[in-house]
């Protein structure tokens, strides 16, 4: 947990870790006496990519994943997670606590790899939108990469966002 000059009483957690992501613990850490609502996003390793409900996978993409291997530019990633948290607070001023956690290392299907959680007094204050914004931004500017290992070989998952100056 960090001390934030602009929001001295509001907990902001960011972490890059090889440990399991503990949702109960993280939620407790960003719950204040005034908190009544939390929106949490987690991403997990997909073991199989099917067409059902996927907007990204096409027929030819169906495949099995053995595991993903994550790496990060850790000190920069922590700074960029802090930037994402600051951007969230600038856009939704009702947000109380924020947690941003990326797990790295070798991660197997069904394992949560990333978490973005935002708390507020009420659910109509932007918590859902803030969590959504957080994961979108993490995937744009936080320096983390993943390599997929499957029965047919290994390949790096390609990002596509190119940050703008000052981002």
């Amino acid at each position, binding site marked *: 947990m960090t001390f934030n000059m602009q929001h001295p009483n509001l907990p902001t957690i960011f972490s890059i870790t090889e440990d399991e992501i503990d949702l109960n613990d993280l939620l407790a850490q960003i719950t204040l006496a005034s908190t009544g609502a939390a929106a949490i996003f987690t991403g997990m390793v997909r073991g199989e990519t099917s067409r059902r409900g996927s907007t990204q996978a096409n027929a030819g993409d169906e495949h099995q994943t053995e595991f993903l291997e994550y790496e990060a*530019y850790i000190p*920069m990633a922590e700074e960029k997670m802090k930037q994402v948290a600051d951007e969230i607070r600038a856009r939704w001023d009702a947000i109380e606590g924020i947690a941003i956690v990326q797990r790295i290392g070798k991660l197997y299907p069904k394992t949560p790899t990333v978490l973005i959680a935002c708390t507020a007094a009420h659910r109509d204050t932007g918590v859902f939108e803030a969590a959504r914004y957080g994961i979108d931004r993490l*995937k744009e500017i*936080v*320096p*983390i990469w993943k390599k997929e290992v499957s029965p047919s070989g290994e390949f790096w998952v390609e990002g596509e966002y190119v940050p703008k100056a000052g981002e």
Partner: protein
Amino acid sequence: MNHVKLLFFATIRERMGTKSLDLELPADLTIHGLKDRLSADYPKVKESLKSVLITINREYAFDEAIIPLNAEIGLFPPVSGG
């Protein structure tokens, strides 16, 4: 001369075969100049450098930026975390 530390990640790390490199660069070299030098010295990453993201002291930087003294420079493909 300017002592800088280069850090490579993901595909570029694999192609370079190393996580980091300490280099002596001329003063006032730009990112563009650094890319030219790396392309010449390490032909195996020449292709990667066309779409590389660059950071100077953990902030995204662009071709025209002049590399400050003792900079930490990151080189990596677009991010893909989550």
